[in-house]
């Protein structure tokens, strides 16, 4: 009985941000700490044993299957391969979410077999990729890093972050990802936050650009058989998503089964990677204790009033887009995702 109660949370995924440090300055970076990052060796940073202990804590309360090691740039931590090894030894799937620029042979040899690397390509145009990444020479380094990871037989997933500058380039970018041995792709439209809101006019694609980019991704999925997840929600009131039959559209799980609570570099728990809301401290509390408290439940509830009368069949999945973006940009969850309003008015 006690076991049943303990296992009653259904989450299979958790994100651990092993550091806030990053050597890139992506134009669209959504991290709330983007202007003030804790360095890799910040005294608050969880050590390797602490990360294992915290993941075990989450696992005691959930049927956890997968841990995503993220940042910042997680590969700035020299012990990342060993952290991945600890988690793999626990029987967990490990995904490393990285720019891909720091994947050296020496590092790759230390990662356990089965590690998945999710890398980011913004374009096939090196100059454009570097401009979006805010790091000159990044493109060449990603290409070399991902080629090495492929040679070491790691599984690869491509993440394309779509903004106004690269929306025209999606088909070729996915093709390049496949050429680099990616077996899955994420089509992530830019997600706004407080610090990127002033740049929204420059970064958010127009509705036509978004439709064109989705069409290109759909064509890539059809032509090459690659699974493409449109991961950051695109509300169906913006675009008729039913015409993209080869894409898989995802929605904010809003604390439901597919939720991926996110652990900060210092053990603080947030609703997801996009949110700055602190729900609790895993160094001091249990995961279930944090997730079941009223504050957490309250966070997920708001629905924008405009969506209450929505008659679309996907209404209950969509519920206004990315809730975290609304909180981050407006300080309130009952506003429509700012991407929607910005895109439609562009």
């Amino acid at each position, binding site marked *: 009985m006690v076991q049943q109660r303990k296992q009653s949370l259904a989450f299979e995924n958790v994100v651990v941000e092993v550091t806030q440090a990053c050597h890139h300055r992506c134009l669209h970076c959504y991290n709330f700490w983007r202007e003030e990052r804790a360095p890799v060796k910040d005294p608050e940073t969880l050590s390797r044993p602490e990360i294992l202990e915290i993941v075990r804590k989450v696992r005691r309360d959930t049927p956890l299957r997968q841990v995503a090691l993220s940042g910042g740039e997680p590969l700035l931590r020299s012990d990342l391969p060993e952290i991945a090894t600890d988690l793999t030894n626990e029987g967990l*799937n490990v995904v490393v979410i990285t720019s891909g620029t720091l994947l050296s042979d020496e590092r790759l040899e230390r990662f356990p077999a089965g590690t998945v690397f999710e890398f980011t390509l913004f374009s096939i145009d090196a100059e454009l990729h570097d401009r979006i990444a805010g790091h000159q020479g990044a493109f060449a380094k990603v290409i070399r890093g991902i080629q090495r990871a492929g040679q070491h037989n790691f599984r690869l997933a491509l993440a394309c972050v779509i903004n106004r500058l690269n929306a025209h380039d999606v088909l070729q970018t996915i093709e390049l990802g*496949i050429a680099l*041995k990616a077996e899955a792709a*994420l089509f992530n439209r830019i997600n706004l936050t407080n610090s990127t809101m002033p740049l929204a006019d420059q970064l958010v694609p127009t509705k036509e650009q978004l439709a064109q980019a989705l069409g290109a991704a759909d064509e890539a999925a059809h032509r*090459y*058989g690659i*699974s493409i*997840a449109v991961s950051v929600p695109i509300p169906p009131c913006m675009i008729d998503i039913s015409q993209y039959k080869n894409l898989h559209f995802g929605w904010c799980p809003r604390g439901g089964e597919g939720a991926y609570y996110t652990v900060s570099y210092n053990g603080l728990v947030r609703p997801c990677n996009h949110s700055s809301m602190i729900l609790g401290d895993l160094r001091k509390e249990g995961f279930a204790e944090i997730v079941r408290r009223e504050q957490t439940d309250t966070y997920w509830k708001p629905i924008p009033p405009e969506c209450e009368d929505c008659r679309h069949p996907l209404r209950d999945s969509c519920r206004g887009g990315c809730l975290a973006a609304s909180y981050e940009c407006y300080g309130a969850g009952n506003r429509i995702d700012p991407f929607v309003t910005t895109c439609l008015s562009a």
Partner: protein
Amino acid sequence: MPKAVVKEGKVIASRGKFYVQVGRSRKAIPAELADAAALKRLAGQTTSVTIFGKSIVAVGKRPGPIIICYVPAPDVFKVIQPDLQRFLQKKYVDAGILPG
């Protein structure tokens, strides 16, 4: 350039090998496409089969509501047919985007 076609097919296991029956045509599933355990789970099921030119590119149902924002769900991966991967590799080497 050939286009990919998605058809319905039935996965058949026979003498340690795996085939897919699409209409009257039975094609062997390339060993590199998926591991035996994954194919065993699909045996007997009707599922989507992606064909590119004469090659089977992907076998398996498209994932359902398993997409999670930001992180690729483990079930979303499909092995891309190596010929297709090499075709794109050559394309981007020839274009000077990938090193030769």
